[in-house]
């Protein structure tokens, strides 16, 4: 390594080190946009958890009120009302819970499968790698939206099918990231050391390889949640997502298309909600990538 960075590294090694987690937290906090992202994400999660508790689904979220349709923002309805007289603010907030929960569930499923496939491919290499990755490539080659449309169109428009569709599209991405991370770590000397003391492959993968490959996987998880939410909004926009009358930002956007000229507030708020959610998740993901990278190489 060149000497300037050697000096810096020696300086770092020579100073007392706290735990790695504390280090990472500090780095993350130094990144203002990442902190902003984190704060917003936490707020969103809170909204997502509290909305179903605070707002009564039957009376406040889906009840139509024809006497109150298309009202502009006012004290009673801060975001106005939609074409069926429902309060846009309440629906927008409620939709947070829908989007976030589907996003998280999908990612957990895709991560679990991706971890297994990716570690196997990355660790064993050779034929195993080839077979797994070629199958993943097939799925990656199909545009995510198209794949989701096909699955939903054939299996029906329900939340479970939506999750399946999204998970199928997301799994190859995780498998790829995990594979890459595993391959980086696989040739480390401590993995060789584990083999030298008699560890079996499975043990090595779980105890030595994966714990050290976490960084890119964590980043991918954050970004993938954002991606799934956006994708669902898109599907809902074309009518293949969350079935009505459940509030969903994309569906709300779609419904507002007809009224966009005179009642622009109808699309503004769901649109803003999507934007803020995706942006904050991406900011957080990027921030995590920077904070994690040099430490957990």
């Amino acid at each position, binding site marked *: *390594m*060149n*000497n*300037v960075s*050697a*000096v*810096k590294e*020696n*300086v*770092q090694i*020579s*100073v*007392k*080190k*706290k735990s790695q987690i504390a280090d990472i937290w*500090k780095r993350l906090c130094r990144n203002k946009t990442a902190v902003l992202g984190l704060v917003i994400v936490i707020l969103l999660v809170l909204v997502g958890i509290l909305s179903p508790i605070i707002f009564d689904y039957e009376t406040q979220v889906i009840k139509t009120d024809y006497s109150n349709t298309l009202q502009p923002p006012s004290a009673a309805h801060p975001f106005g009302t939609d074409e069926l007289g429902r309060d846009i603010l309440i629906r927008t907030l409620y939709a947070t819970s829908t989007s976030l929960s589907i996003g998280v569930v999908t990612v957990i499923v895709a991560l679990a499968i991706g971890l297994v496939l990716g570690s196997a491919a990355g660790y064993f290499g050779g034929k195993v790698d080839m077979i797994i990755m070629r199958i993943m490539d097939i799925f990656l080659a199909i545009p995510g939206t198209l794949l989701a449309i096909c699955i939903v169109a054939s299996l029906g428009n329900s939340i479970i099918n939506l999750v399946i569709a999204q998970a199928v599209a997301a799994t190859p991405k995780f498998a790829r990231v995990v594979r890459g991370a595993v391959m980086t770590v696989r040739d480390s000397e401590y993995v060789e050391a584990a083999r030298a003391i008699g560890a079996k492959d499975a043990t090595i993968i779980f105890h030595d390889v994966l714990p050290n490959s976490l960084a890119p996987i964590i980043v991918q998880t954050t970004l993938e949640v954002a991606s799934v939410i956006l994708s669902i909004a898109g599907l809902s926009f074309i009518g293949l997502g969350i079935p009505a009358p459940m509030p969903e930002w994309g569906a709300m956007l779609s419904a507002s298309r007809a009224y966009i000229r005179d009642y622009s507030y109808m699309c503004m708020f769901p649109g803003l909600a999507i934007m803020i959610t995706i942006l904050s998740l991406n900011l957080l993901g990027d921030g995590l990538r920077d904070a994690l990278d040099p430490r957990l190489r």
Partner: protein
Amino acid sequence: MSEDIKKDLTAEIRDLVVEFRTDYGVVQALNGLELEIERGKTLGLVGETGAGKTTTGLSLLRLIPNPPGVIVSGSIKLDGKDILSMSDKEMQAIRGKTVAMIFQDPMTSLDPVMTVEQQIAEVIKLHEEGGQAEALKRAREMLELVGIPGSRGGEYPHQFSGGMKQRVVIAMALACNPELLIADEPTTALDVTIQAQVLEMMKGLREKYNTSMLMITHDLGIVAEICDKVSVIYAGRVIEHGTLEDIFKNTRHPYTEGLFNSLPNLEDRQAELKPIKGLMPDPSNLPKGCAFCPRCDYAMDICETQKPGRTYRNDTHYVECHLYNKDNIHEGKVKSR
């Protein structure tokens, strides 16, 4: 010392204090470093990791990364001129021309996407008159000088072996005939037979151009091979300095003695190695008195509380240690190897 008016010094560092201000604390990298490099001579800077050798080298080029590094106080003079007061532009003119540096790892010192002659020519064009053609011609001459056929100039770094890459780096450093060459562990990454070739070559070039050299190393064998004078650095200060004869045959400081004792003796293979106990002190938390005191076999009470001053044995040899004063320094309490 009244002698310095008579010395022709290429580089002079007086009382240099350099700190690295990090989140975890302030690292005292250099604590009042003093260094003198005479024209045409080679000074060896010997110490272990963390002693401040590389920081010293970088200071001479004013390349300390800032942040987190800060030159707190002291003076650095190159060819009599104070470089700490120079502007960035003036420093750029000096780097590569008056003073050049060779780093340890030739792989990262060379740009992988430029041919070797282009890299040498780049240095020449930056500091000297003449166009591309002339610079390339001169670059090829430099390659020949370091033992690489000029016809290989059009090749890329990855096509050369480690030893040859280091020669290219040396050619680049010497291209503008600098007054001072700083070599930071230039042969540590090389095989021992290649190291011998490179050192031999450096000696030859030094003779030819009368270049002054600062050889930063931890290897006392290399010091014996190529240096005229030696400064032993520990925790950011030079704790012993002298000619080869002074340091090798009249070792005074316990740390220097410890370094020699840690080396396996080629003559007597059964002799047990006598390592220095303990570790280098934490530079963000240096001991109050003498920095070496916690590890020193000869430590006295005063060593814990007071930093030792300089004691001279003769015109060239001094040591910073409470064991000595001007009366007993000639005897040398420290045992010879």
